[in-house]
């Protein structure tokens, strides 16, 4: 398996689980993730892959089973998307508190309401504070690589937390790209079996896991321990990346850089849409604009030092959030601002844009305009308020839909208020 093959993001996720030697796979279907568990089921059915797959009756039970399985010392893989992730949210926080390692793949899809099938990151960001590690893949290649790295970090004795690998629905899930599948014989070098001393589950060694505590003192202790483990996972992740590069020859870092060296205007984006930003950076460079891209591969733990290193000393930083925290704005912009506050050579301006919601495209013209606004803001020392990437033509389409829906309050010209 050392050939480059065309494979979808969902296929790459299934390969990640197979190569990692997942032993227990509690699952529940949801678009656009289902193909992952179908692929695994097919392999198991044909005897090409070991392990046991169990279909549960909901994501809530699925994540409970995943955490319980991991507590017994078997390698667990599971996958979900969107509403499914939210349905299992209670248990996501819970199993992180159990301090058990497992890998969950989330195929990003915008949240209801209104319901959609296409991607943005509000689903995965709802898990931001759960205690789960969070890795955002931008290509099908990164999906398989990130899963192997995620297992190694999650199972590390210094960490022992669940990890979520995120890939975008449609843009990766159903899209084939050339992927180097890691050589199965080398995977064992990178990812040893789970340590049986760490995870013992035997009749002669009973454990009551996930106990209750009363009083803020013990509670604070356990919660803060989870936080410290997550913080420390940045370094463990970096170590894993070095080792991954050594074994497989592909190099990763908590924050991925594209033409950052002498960049004056730096875009910050996560996930598959970041490749659009890479393309835009190349095209802007051709026009003499010194643009670059910093892409957090790791969102939790938040790679604060790497973010500071990537963004300080720049003319302007442009964060494009493919998510929306209602009543606040883009989540990533907030994280970036907190990392840069009080830094001696903080960038001249920090601009926020919200785009790509529900899979809405972001065009080169828009990247070029964001870069131009960033130049102006840096020169004037004042950033404009966060803007939703939205056009007159898109609003017209909505007005047409509202007219068809007999929505109340359209002005006679059908223009609404905006």
């Amino acid at each position, binding site marked *: 398996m050392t050939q480059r093959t065309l494979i979808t993001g969902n296929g790459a996720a299934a390969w990640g689980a197979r190569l990692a030697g997942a032993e227990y796979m509690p699952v529940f279907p949801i678009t656009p993730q289902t193909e992952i568990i179908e692929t695994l089921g097919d392999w198991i059915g044909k005897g090409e892959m070991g392990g046991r797959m169990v279909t549960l009756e909901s994501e809530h039970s699925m994540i409970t089973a995943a955490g319980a399985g991991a507590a017994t010392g078997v390698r667990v893989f599971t996958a979900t998307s969107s509403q499914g992730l939210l349905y299992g949210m209670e248990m996501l926080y819970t199993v992180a508190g159990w301090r058990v390692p497992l890998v969950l793949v989330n195929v990003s899809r915008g949240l209801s309401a209104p319901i959609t099938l296409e991607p943005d990151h509000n689903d995965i960001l709802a898990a931001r504070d759960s205690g789960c590690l969070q890795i955002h893949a931008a290509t099908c290649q990164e999906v398989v690589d990130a899963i192997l790295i995620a297992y190694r970090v999650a199972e590390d004795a210094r960490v022992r937390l669940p990890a979520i690998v995120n890939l975008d629905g*449609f843009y990766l899930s159903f899209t084939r790209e050339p992927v180097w599948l890691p050589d199965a014989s080398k995977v064992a070098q990178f990812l040893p079996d789970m340590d049986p001393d760490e995870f013992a589950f035997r009749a002669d060694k009973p454990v009551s896991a996930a106990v209750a505590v009363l009083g803020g003192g013990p509670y604070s202790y356990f919660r803060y321990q989870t936080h410290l483990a997550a913080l420390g996972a940045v370094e463990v992740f970096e170590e894993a990346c070095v080792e991954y590069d050594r074994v497989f020859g592909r190099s990763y870092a908590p924050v991925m850089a594209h033409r950052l060296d002498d960049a004056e205007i730096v875009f910050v984006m996560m996930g598959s849409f970041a490749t659009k930003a890479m393309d835009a950076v190349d095209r802007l460079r051709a026009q003499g604009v010194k643009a670059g891209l910093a892409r957090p591969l790791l969102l939790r733990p938040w790679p604060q030092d790497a973010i500071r290193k990537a963004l300080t000393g720049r003319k302007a930083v442009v964060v494009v959030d493919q998510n929306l925290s209602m009543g606040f704005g883009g989540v990533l912009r907030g994280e970036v601002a907190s990392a840069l506050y009080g830094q001696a050579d903080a960038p001249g301006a920090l601009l926020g844009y919200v785009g790509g919601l529900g899979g809405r495209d972001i065009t080169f013209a828009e990247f070029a305009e964001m870069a131009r606004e960033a130049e102006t803001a840096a020169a004037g020392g004042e950033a404009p308020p966060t803007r939703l990437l939205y056009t007159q033509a898109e609003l017209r389409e909505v007005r047409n839909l509202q007219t068809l829906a007999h929505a109340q309050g359209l002005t006679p010209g059908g223009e609404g208020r905006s």
Partner: protein
Amino acid sequence: MYRIRFHGRGGQGMKTASRILGAAFFLEGFEVQDAPRYGAERRGAPIFAFVRADRSPILERGVIPNPDLVMVADDTLVGMPQAGVLQGLNAHAVLAIHSTTPAGEWRQRLNTDARIVILPPLFDLLDAAQRVRVSAVIAGAAACLTGRVGRDTLSQAVRTELADLTNTVIKDNINKALQAYDEMNEFKGIAEPQPRTDTPLPTGWITLGLDPATLAAPAIHAAANSVQVRTGLWRTLRPVFDYSHCNRCNWVCGSFCPDGVVSADENGWPRIDYDHCKGCMVCVAQCPKHAIQGMPEGWAAQQTMPTPPSPDRKEAAP
């Protein structure tokens, strides 16, 4: 970069066609991205798939708004705005249609500058047995139109993508793909990558303001609005009554129809609302009198549908 779109209906093999072409480009040393695009629809609904192929890594993602080549397996989609076949076509692009209507007539009918090519008649969409070939034929023709894929590579790509099928079927598909490739020879290489302009266009941005919640909640106030979704466009087979056999039992077809589009007229004769019948053929299978037949949609659309005998067959019949 080559940007190629495939248009067909769900179930006609456009995903496989795009994968065969994608695999062929990949074998020729190109970087490739291929993907189908489907929504909440089902079999019979217009769908499309696309392929990008380039010599350097592909950073572009998502649907292709400005294709160099558009392949159409089902010509009933060309004039259907919902299918988006003509979207983004310019004088540089090639529109290749599987059709019995000649190119000249399409040129007149469609308001497009694109160069139009008619694909060889190597399959009949209406014959279910031939459907399995559609992907191979469409991919084979596209491979030739780009001029970047050799015959051997094409065969290998068909073999790879259809690996789950029997050897006989694979061989038939390879033959059909190669035949389509050869029959397109006079147009070999006419589809070429468009030069990309890097002049930033105006973004057309607006600042979205607050609307009252009555307007901004995603609610539909229009009553009976689902009739506006013409699911009849998904139909490839049309159920047609033979009233001389129908006994007006008037519940079997109507009860089994999953879409509730069969109603009885005042004399008890069943009628179908063709704007919304999806052509699933459940009624055809269920009618105890075999009084409903499935007719190819393209053909049926040109016919006058039989009307029920009036007012009562027993009296009207000789």
